[in-house]
């Protein structure tokens, strides 16, 4: 099961390396959002620094929607999803492979965003380890939920508009927990960021289980 | 007190609107379905 998941993730990441949608579209989009926030908050570096954790994670979630859309778009372009269903691969492998590919992309997005908030918002993390760990764990949770909902809408004509409506409310706990954790890491709020990692981890585990259990049902018909 | 009255009006009004919407939808659909297929809906005794 894990080997097939690895094959699927590697395939998606290879497509990504060739097509460069992440580097030429998703990353610039994330940067644009960061710039837009600066305009919206009246170019006040103080405010930007204070709200860095929240702005950072809102941007990551927006980028995640794009990443999920892209990861599933390659499957419907020329009937590859049917081929995937015909390959007899365990649906759980497809779920895990897709989730791993999305998570990898999100980590790349997070690194770039981390650098840009340091530069543009004058926000420097006090606790780099916490920021890194929370970033990876949150990416995993977002990717698991994204992989689940991406497959759910993949065969609908309205998939691009429906996906954010379904996915973003579900990610509310991730946004809250990751923002809290980064609040601690960037020293903007006095909370125990490591404790919030528990929420992120729990979310990730729950959605991984949900995906493994329900993917068969989702791919069977869709 | 104005807020309280407004709350009640919206609350009861919301019930009434939704009830009306359900009834209208039901009437329209029911006329397309023969009586023997309308289970439980014994409106015509």
């Amino acid at each position, binding site marked *: 099961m894990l080997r097939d998941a690895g094959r699927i993730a590697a395939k998606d990441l290879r497509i990504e390396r060739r097509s460069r949608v992440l580097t030429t579209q998703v990353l610039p989009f994330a940067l644009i959002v960061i710039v837009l926030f600066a305009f919206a908050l009246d170019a006040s570096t103080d405010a930007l620094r204070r709200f860095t954790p929240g702005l950072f994670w809102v941007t990551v979630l927006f980028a995640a929607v794009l990443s999920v859309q892209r990861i599933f778009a390659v499957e419907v372009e020329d009937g590859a999803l049917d081929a995937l269903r015909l390959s007899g691969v365990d649906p759980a492998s497809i779920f895990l492979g897709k989730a791993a590919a999305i998570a990898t992309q999100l980590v790349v997005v997070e690194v770039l965003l981390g650098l840009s908030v340091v530069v543009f918002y004058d926000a420097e993390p006090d606790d780099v380890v916490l920021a890194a760990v929370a970033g990876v764990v949150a990416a995993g949770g977002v990717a698991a939920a994204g992989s689940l909902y991406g497959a759910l809408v993949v065969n609908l004509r309205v998939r691009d508009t429906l996906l954010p*409506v379904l996915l973003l*409310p579900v990610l509310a706990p991730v946004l809250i927990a990751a923002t809290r954790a980064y609040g601690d890491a960037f020293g903007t709020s006095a909370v125990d960021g490591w404790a919030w990692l528990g*929420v992120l981890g729990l979310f990730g585990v*729950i959605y991984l289980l949900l995906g493994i259990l329900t993917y068969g*049902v989702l791919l*069977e018909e869709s | 007190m104005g807020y309280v009255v407004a709350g009640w009006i919206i*609350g009861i009004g919301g019930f009434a609107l939704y009830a009306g919407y359900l009834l209208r939808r039901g*009437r329209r659909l029911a006329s397309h379905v023969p009586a023997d297929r*309308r289970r*439980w809906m014994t409106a015509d005794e």
Partner: protein
Amino acid sequence: MSTRPSTGSTVTRVIGIAALIALALLLCAAFWWSEPDAQQGDAVRLFYLHVPVAILEYVAFIIAGVGSVMYLWKRSVFGDVMAHAAAEVGVVFCALTLITGSLWGRPTWGTYWDWGDVRLVTTLILLLLFVGYLALRQVPGDRHTRSKQAAIVALVALIDIPIINRSVEWWANRTLHQRSTLIEGKIEDINAFATFLGFLACGLVLSWFLVHRFRVAWLEREVATHGLERALSERRAEGAEV
């Protein structure tokens, strides 16, 4: 008695009339028979409507969850239709909860909305989750596929709710708002009879909504099935001509 086809029946008429009577009594109880609250003042009069609607909204969503499980587990068409009906009624109740809650909050807290209140925030996200559910439901396509997808969305939403609730509670602590406990304290004070009446009236309204919405969904299925039969015979005729 009307002979026009509708989703009504004797049972729903009895529930409907009982609901109207109970609502009328509740109105009297809220505005004339009960006293203003010591702390909330007259705002408590909205509570007799708000609290039952809020609690029953969760009942509706739990019914939607049960229906979804019935569909996923046993392929129960009844469960599927019930889940759809309960989700829509739940969204109506949820929206009314938020509106009445905001209008109660304005005189009591001095603000329509308070991000520090766990229930408020959780309820809003619950509303958004089920709005997404209804959006998915109305996308045309294969019936079984859509039902399965919807059932998964409903279950995921319900599983998400406790996580959201816990994280909002934890998150909101920083603001030192203790609204939740404040509300719990209040429940004890408000007029027990009016509260009971509120639950009765709103419970009857909920059941009336559920039954009618269920029948609407059932009729939709019948219409679709009928359309399918016609499409099938047309298709076969097309084949015979050649």
